[in-house]
């Protein structure tokens, strides 16, 4: 019944299945919305945060989402500025994922603040020396860029594209995309970095504090670098997941492998920098403040040394090497494991830089404090995930996200004419979709 909206030359699952998937994701979304409203109306007492844990799950989610969404700016940078043409086949999806990540981060920020109705004070009364101000401005601006990057894709929907103005606008935006991508990269460099700076400038928190260049602590650069390294991992991982769920190949291997290779090198260079940073911090910065680095990992099993090892070795060196070496990179299983480890690694890094910072006592007579989130916090964190799933469901169904999809999945027997007919015919299209269901059903359920 929605076949008129489905892009030309591709098959989509039947509507009922699509609606079912929407309903499932919608239920999670609804749960999150209930929690969100509770938080807005009753206040932050709905969380398990406290005066020692002013930053907790949500800030972690923000940092993680933005790091994972870093695939958008970095892929854009590679595609439009460095001119790596192959990446045009994945850039759409990178933009979509980035869009989801950033809009989610903004939403969570709006929930996380004690006075959401005054949230705009961060712009109005901005303290330009605060890393968070920089985050807010760059994040908002970059989100605007993401909207600009996502808009032409929306306008390419078959029906919208029929409107001449939309068609032209979309075309023009494509033409100027390099400018936007460059601006996006510029903004991303600063907000990803500022997010790193958020923790790194805390000179009252020796676990987080880093020296650096001028006003920028080393975490500033590490965060940008890690977002560029791990963001594409997330893009690739979600692409793989989408392929598994739809049961279709959507992006050609050469594209995936190219991006994976770049990510691999980025990860390895990042990890080297991270190790240098960690060693310097552990041997110079922390001791100068009176702390032996082992102290930070000494109190409880959660924040033991394992967390540092996991972050750097298991989720850093390992995926980096797996993606650099040709044989493992080309092996789909090894590649996906590497991507997953990368995604976990950057999330773990953000976790450590937010929650472990809060856990460690600074005054010698203070106590370690551990925290677990309330269901409201979990629900509101899953809300954007559900929202992302819904947006992907809709976008995938109605927008030509994967340029290589028709070529990789010809509607048998594929002829340009047949494709045109199928879309016009409607009934025939539905039938061919029924066939596809068989493949998609297990993953979809």
């Amino acid at each position, binding site marked *: 019944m929605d076949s008129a909206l489905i892009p030309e030359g591709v098959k989509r699952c039947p509507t009922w299945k699509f609606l079912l998937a929407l309903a499932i994701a919608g239920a999670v979304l609804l749960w999150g919305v209930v929690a969100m409203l509770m938080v807005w109306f009753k206040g932050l007492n709905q969380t398990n945060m406290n005066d020692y844990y002013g930053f907790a799950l949500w800030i972690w989610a923000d940092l993680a989402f933005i790091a994972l969404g870093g695939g958008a700016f970095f892929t854009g940078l590679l595609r439009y500025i460095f001119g790596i043409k192959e990446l045009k086949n994945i850039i759409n999806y990178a933009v979509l994922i980035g869009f989801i990540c950033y809009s989610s981060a903004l939403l969570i920020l709006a929930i996380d603040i004690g006075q959401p109705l005054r949230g705009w004070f961060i712009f109005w009364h*901005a303290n330009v020396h605060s890393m968070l101000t920089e985050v807010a401005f760059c994040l908002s601006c970059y989100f605007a860029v993401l909207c600009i990057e996502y808009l032409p894709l929306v306008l390419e929907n078959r029906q919208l594209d029929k409107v001449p103005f939309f068609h032209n606008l979309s075309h023009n935006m494509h033409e100027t995309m390099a400018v936007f991508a460059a601006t996006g990269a510029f903004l991303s460099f600063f907000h990803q970095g500022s997010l790193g700076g958020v923790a790194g400038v*805390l000179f009252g928190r020796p676990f987080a504090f880093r020296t650096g260049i001028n006003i920028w602590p080393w975490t500033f650069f590490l965060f940008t670098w890690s977002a560029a390294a791990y963001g594409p991992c997330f893009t690739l991982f979600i692409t793989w997941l989408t392929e598994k769920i739809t049961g279709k190949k959507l992006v050609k291997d050469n594209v995936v492998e190219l991006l994976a290779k770049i990510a691999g090198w980025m990860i390895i260079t990042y990890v080297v920098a991270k190790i240098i940073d960690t060693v310097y911090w552990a041997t110079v910065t922390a001791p100068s403040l009176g702390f032996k680095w082992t102290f930070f990992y000494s109190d409880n099993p959660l924040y033991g040394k394992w967390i540092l090892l996991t972050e750097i070795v298991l989720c850093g060196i390992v995926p980096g090497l797996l993606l650099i070496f040709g044989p493992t990179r080309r092996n789909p299983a090894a590649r996906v494991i590497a991507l997953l480890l990368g995604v976990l690694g950057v999330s773990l890094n953000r976790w450590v830089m937010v929650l472990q910072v809060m856990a460690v006592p600074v005054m010698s007579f203070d106590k370690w404090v551990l925290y677990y989130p309330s269901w409201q916090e979990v629900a509101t964190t899953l809300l954007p995930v559900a929202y992302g799933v819904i947006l992907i469901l809709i976008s995938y169904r109605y927008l030509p996200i994967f340029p290589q999809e028709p070529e990789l999945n010809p509607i048998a027997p594929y002829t340009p004419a047949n494709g045109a007919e199928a879309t016009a015919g409607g009934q025939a299209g539905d039938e061919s979709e029924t066939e596809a269901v068989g493949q998609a059903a297990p993953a979809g359920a």
Partner: protein
Amino acid sequence: MKQEQTQHRPKRYGMVIDLDKCTGCGSCMVACMAENNVSFKKDESDKLLSITWMRVYKITNGKPFPDTDICYIPRPCQHCAGQHEGHSPCVSVCPATATDYSRETGIVSQIYTRCFGCRYCMAACPYHARYFNWWDPVWPDGMEKYLNPDVSPRMRGVVEKCSFCFQRYQAAKNKAYLEGRRELEEDEYQTACTQACPAGAIVFGDLNNPDHLVHKMVDPDLKHGGRPRNPEVFRLLERLGTNPKVYYKSGRQWVRKAGDNYLPGEKPGADMHKSHS
């Protein structure tokens, strides 16, 4: 640079707490709550959710009975000056300029109506001197009558903290102005906790003024962020470079050592004067 509102020498209001005199009685905490309209809940036993601008920490030397010893450390906001005047851990991070460092008084203020509750300042403060209003403040029926009109009760969702009873400074300045004076006498501006302390353990005044008792007790090295030259006086977390304006005095070595962090085997004071770049 911001123009000084007075042609006179700027003030650096600070506090010295004699930990050997402090008895841990808690008067300072309640004096503060009463003066500053601090709210309370039915259960305040979770100290991670309990707003106490002035919090009295109980510390121990960790030795077994009967060699064990305890000491109380009253902890108001430390009113850090930071590495360079005004670069307090919290002031530098607040995205909305809702907390500010006064170059006239050295007091770190909090603007409740501007704070939007991001809690970054709380993450930045190593002293945990900042508190968030997780709940709407509710006074039991009738008790709102005792609220002090000089301090506005805070609404849910904002951060609050000790202001060195800034309202008292304003009142004293107003009074002095009406009397045609520009300078305040030492006893004209005292915080509620200083005034209430039954042991007289808290001394408050202008660290820049050599006539004030705080200056005499601390003998601050103003070229080095006000570092105390009196060997019995110390500041909490001196090595972080926060340069607080709350000083502590104790004759007990273990108490002074507890004020900062030291590497295993490191002697207190060895690295006191070095701070990070």
